[in-house]
C-alpha cells in the first residue's frame, strides 16, 4: 500500500536552532513530491515540488531535498514566523499526504 510518513510529529526549536523534517514514502511510481506549509485554520500553502532523486529546492530559510525513499525539509536559523505544520505529499496517480509535522519556533 502506498504510504507517506512524516517525522517527527511535533518539533520545538529555539529561534536560530537549525533542524530537519523527514518525509519517507513507499509508492511504486513517484511523479513528484510536494511540500506545503499550513497555518492553523488555513489551507495548505505550496512550497516546493521535487521530481527526481538528488534534486534540491530552496526558499528563504527552507531547503528541500529528495532521495529515492525520502525527502528532507531543512530549516536553517528558523524564526518564530516559521511556526506552522509542514505537510509532505507524493504524487502517483493521485496526491497522497502525510500527517504533517507541527513546528514551533520559540524566541
Amino acid at each position: 500500500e502506498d504510504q507517506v510518513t512524516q517525522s517527527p510529529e511535533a518539533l520545538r526549536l529555539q529561534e536560530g536552532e537549525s533542524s530537519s523534517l523527514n518525509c519517507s514514502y513507499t509508492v511504486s511510481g513517484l511523479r513528484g513530491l510536494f511540500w506545503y506549509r499550513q497555518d492553523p485554520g488555513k489551507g495548505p500553502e505550496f512550497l516546493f515540488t521535487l521530481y527526481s532523486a538528488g534534486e534540491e529546492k530552496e526558499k528563504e530559510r527552507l531547503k528541500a531535498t529528495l532521495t529515492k525513499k525520502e525527502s528532507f525539509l531543512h530549516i536553517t536559523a528558523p524564526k518564530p514566523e516559521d511556526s506552522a505544520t509542514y505537510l509532505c505529499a507524493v504524487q502517483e496517480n493521485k496526491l497522497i499526504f502525510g500527517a504533517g509535522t507541527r513546528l514551533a519556533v520559540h524566541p
Partner: protein
Amino acid sequence: DVKVTQSSRYLVKRTGEKVFLECVQDMDHENMFWYRQDPGLGLRLIYFSYDVKMKEKGDIPEGYSVSREKKERFSLILESASTNQTSMYLCASSFGETQYFGPGTRLLVL
C-alpha cells in the same frame, strides 16, 4: 497568483440538512479537488474533477456528491449531513501536478 476561494470559512448545520460547499478558482485550471482534513488522519480525497461535468470518486466519497457545471466552480454537496462529517473541508485546483488550496471551510454538524 493562483486564487482559490471557498464560500464560507465556518458553517454550523443540523443533522439531516443538505449542505453546499462552493469553491471557485480564477486560474482557468482544468483539475479541481475536494478534501477533508481531520486531526491524526491528514488530508483525504473525497472527489475530484478533470473537466466540466466530469467527476471521479476519491478515497472517501460516501455521503458526498459534487457538481461541476462551470470550469471555475466545483461544489461539494452533503446530501444529509451527519455528525461524522464535522471536519475541515479543503478545495484545491491544479493545471499540472501542483495543487493550490483554498482557505478551507470548517463545518460543524450538530
